[in-house]
């Protein structure tokens, strides 16, 4: 399956979904005007990948400085797809790594919220 690479902008994060290099990453700020338009292609990609490669690992690295409420919801759709992928084969290397600053209370709390809602390995990793 071809990689999905979307360049970073002032309002949207960099997306790297590259099965060849085993690299899955969402990094930057997320305040798109229309979150559905931005995140649906990413959701579609991860859904198709999971369907066609049920035994592959997906270790998603998430490093977001800021996100608006519509981004939160749609990111959750994506995380839950990876959650279901994990449930299918319980592959030990499928997980979500949530990167944030230790001092960033909002992002630490958001990470913990997602961790509680999902049922897959979810690691909160401090950047400093």
């Amino acid at each position, binding site marked *: 399956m071809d990689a999905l690479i979307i360049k970073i902008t002032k309002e949207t994060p960099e997306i790297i979904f590259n099965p060849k290099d085993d690299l899955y990453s969402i990094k930057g700020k997320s305040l798109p005007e229309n979150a559905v*338009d931005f995140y*649906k292609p990413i959701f579609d990609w991860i859904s198709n990948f999971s369907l066609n490669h049920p035994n592959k690992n997906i270790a998603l690295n998430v490093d977001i400085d800021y996100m*608006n*409420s*519509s*981004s*939160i*919801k749609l990111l959750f759709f994506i995380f839950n797809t990876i959650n279901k992928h994990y449930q299918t084969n319980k592959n030990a290397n499928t997980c979500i790594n949530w990167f944030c600053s230790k001092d960033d*209370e909002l992002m630490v709390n958001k990470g913990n919220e997602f961790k509680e809602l999902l049922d897959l390995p979810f690691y909160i990793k401090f950047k400093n």
Partner: protein
Amino acid sequence: MDLYKYYTEFNNSNEIFILYGDFSDEITSHLSDLNSNLNADDKKISKRLSYLTIETFQNIVRHGYQSVEEKNSKRIKKGMFAYTKVKDGFILGTVNEIKSEKAEVLKTQLEELNQLNEVELKEKYIETLYREDRTENGGAGVGLISVLRKSTGNISYIFEPINDKISRFFFQSNLIKSTDTTPDFLTEKFFNLMSENDIVLFRKGIFNHSYMLLITELLDAKLNVNSDSAYGKSFFFIVRELLQNIYQHSKTNNNEGVFLLREDQDKLNICCGNFIESSKTKLISTYIDQLNSLDKLGLKELYKEKLFSQMDFENTSSSGGIGLLEIKKLVNSQIYYNFDTVSEKMSFFSIKVSI
């Protein structure tokens, strides 16, 4: 909350932007960016508006009264800056404090300049440019003459003594197509609105995504809020979400609304208002009442329910539907709201969050 009252009070102004409080040079570029987001139909007017915005704002920072304590730190001046779009053009107004002795000199200068025609103003401009006796702020009056040259008609102004040493200077310049009528002196009305209600920023008009981003950048430069702190991140999250609500849910053609930021002792009150279909008021009030009634655990459960129950891209609104819930989770206080009936089918929805 009087957002609808403010909306209707300035009925003749389609767009209003007012900033009040402490100003520094840092804000200048943000004001210019906000201005360029406005639709001035005429390119020439647009350029003049841009010039007048920067020049009139910088007059506050350059020439406003500065107390001795502030002199050694960054140049910060108290004042007000406003622009408004009226039927035939634009009005720009500023208010700042000046030394009373300086007020007398300025009054004489303005009286003289207002008497000059276009040709005489140009001559005066050139004469002043080459004059050697520049003021301690380096302006030499050139800025003032430039403002007059780029405006239509005379400058309007008032000097109001505050005490025996300081006066308040109200200044208004107009960019109006028709020179038959003299616009109202709105600057004083705007100042009264802001100062009597501790309002830091007031905006009536069109809202969109770009404008939301510009407003938050301006507030980041103006306010004494560290945008990297927990409080700062929460504050700016709420500002963005409430601004988004205006242009995503407003039921008028132009995404019209009102945004207001008010200082209330140790809190900031963030208020937004927009038009909605009257049929939606019950749904909104039920939802906000529910949010206000829930404790932390209740909010958590509702959050989980909303995230899992609406996993449908086709039916997901671009706003996501969890904005108010996210806001409620951040603040330890009630979300206040109000509906004003506009017509049988239309209401004005106002919301206030304190942080």
